[in-house]
């Protein structure tokens, strides 16, 4: 790059229409960035101002009080929904993360390019594309119809959504573990399962955790899978397996179309709570990724 060197023939100076067009296109691309930021900022603005207003007007009560039975009644209360979201998302995490990691271990450590592994990998891609409402209906038909509404039904549906995501993100991470780590372990006479548990998985752990947390963050915000499985409670229900429960996302969905301002206000408050939760999870996931990058 010898910019500014004096050439006898200046090839770049005069601003032709080609240069103008290039600049114009760059400006348009910048415009696309602005166009993306507008809805993000608008949503953040609405959620923070309106949700924050509700949340902090009656500060701790919003997080602890029960949901008013009469929806036009003003006042706080999303406590049961927060508990419900934690229950169903937590249950889904306990189901999907270990199974997902094991599935990925099979795909990468045992299956490799075998026919069965190829089919499973393909079906994992297929499963990622299943619309969340279909998962919700599936769980309703197989679980809720028999055992009734519960947070666990929601957990099952969310777990179905998370499973393929955890499998493929974990498999990507296992691919990054250098194979000489495995070979070193085998050379010491370590069995395969022990190698996987004590060498391979720990080496890939930050990446696996990051992928799993992103899946959890997505699941926490899901509504459609919970719609038919969780029911509509307005009181605290700490039981995972029995009785109708609720969640933040369900409360937002129900209250969004309400004509009562009080209900809408609660929806904004629930939205701010839910967004804070998902953002925090994403942030933690990011720091794990950053640590992984540092290690390398």
């Amino acid at each position, binding site marked *: 790059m010898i910019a500014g060197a004096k050439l006898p023939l200046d*090839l770049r100076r005069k601003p032709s229409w*080609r240069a103008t067009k*290039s600049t114009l296109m*760059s400006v*348009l*691309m*910048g*415009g*696309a*960035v602005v*166009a*993306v930021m507008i809805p*993000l900022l608008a*949503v953040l603005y609405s959620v923070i101002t309106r949700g924050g207003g509700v949340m902090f007007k009656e500060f701790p009560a919003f997080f602890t009080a029960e949901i008013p039975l009469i929806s036009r009644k003003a006042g706080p209360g999303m406590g049961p929904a927060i508990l419900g979201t934690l229950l169903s998302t937590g249950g889904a995490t306990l189901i999907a993360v270990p199974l997902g990691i*094991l*599935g990925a*271990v099979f795909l990468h*450590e*045992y299956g490799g390019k075998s026919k069965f*592994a190829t089919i*499973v990998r393909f079906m994992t891609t*297929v*499963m*990622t*594309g*299943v*619309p*969340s*409402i*279909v998962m919700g*209906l*599936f769980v309703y038909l*197989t679980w809720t119809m028999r055992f009734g509404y519960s947070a666990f039904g929601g957990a099952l549906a969310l777990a179905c959504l998370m*499973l393929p995501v955890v499998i493929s993100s974990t498999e990507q991470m296992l691919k990054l573990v250098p194979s000489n780590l495995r070979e070193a372990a085998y050379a010491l*006479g*370590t*069995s*395969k*399962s*022990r190698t*996987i*548990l004590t060498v391979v998985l720990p080496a890939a752990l930050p990446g696996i955790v990051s992928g799993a947390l*992103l899946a959890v*963050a997505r699941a*926490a*915000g899901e*509504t*459609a899978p919970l*719609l*038919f499985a969780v029911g509509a409670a307005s009181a605290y229900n700490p039981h995972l397996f029995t009785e109708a429960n609720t969640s933040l*996302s369900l409360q*937002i969905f129900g209250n969004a*179309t309400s004509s009562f301002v009080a209900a*809408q206000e609660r929806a904004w408050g629930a*939205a701010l709570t*839910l*967004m804070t939760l*998902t*953002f925090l999870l*994403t942030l933690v996931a990011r720091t794990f990724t950053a640590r992984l990058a540092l290690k390398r």
Partner: protein
Amino acid sequence: MLDLRGKSATGDRAFRWIAIGAAALVLLVLGLIALVMTSRAGPVLSKMGLDFFTSSRWSAPDGIFGALPFIWGTLFTALIALAIAVPISLGVALFVTQVAPRWLKKPMVYMMDLLAVVPSVVFGLWGVLVLSQHFGLGRSFLTAGIILAVMITPIITSLAREVIETTPPSDKEAALALGATRWEMITAAVLPHSKGGLVGAVMLGLGRALGETIAAALVIGSALGQITPNPFAPGNSMPAVIANEWGEADDMHKSALIALAVTLFVITIAVNLIATAIVQRSMKRSGGKT
């Protein structure tokens, strides 16, 4: 004393089978979904036959279920969403990879990630209470399309960015060395190289838009029987109908809603598979990592 493997052989084998079981679970769940859903959709399909897909009268009390308006609504809103999201996503992806200074890259990727984790119901809430009320759009195909566009933009952008970044620097440098402007370099080197992958990225966005339920259910307007190309009309889409009508549905009605879910399932799976195939092929050809 120096038995370093010995008794762990059983444990070793057990672990292997547990891993196989976990992997097989994917097949089991998918198989069950297909089986349960299609068997429950049976009653309405045997009653309505192909009319389920081609007739446009949907009247639960009369037991008549024609899903064409909802199929139309799903496709129409998804197309509106693509028309808005594709140019913007491409613009952002090109800006991040080709135009933006290095220090700006990270915060912008971060911002797109943030947009990607906003729960869809929050977008729906914003769509209902802000976008449709204060911008005079009402609840309509267009409102749903806009909300869906916002939701699929991060996905298309991040895939497009990955695809574009596989362009060999030598291709770009060659174009620049021949005196191409930045835009000419993009059209001559970057876009031809990433064409396949970009098509795949758009298709994955389409798959996502087709299956998105909650935001669409809130803003599309829940009007019956509208097959119109007017984006300002209120309409309905398959996932929205399922979400809104399930609560008060009787058996035949439920069967019809499940048949809608099966239709949606088949369409989204097909779109996703084609997309994945396109992305993988183009990634392989360009030697990039998938």
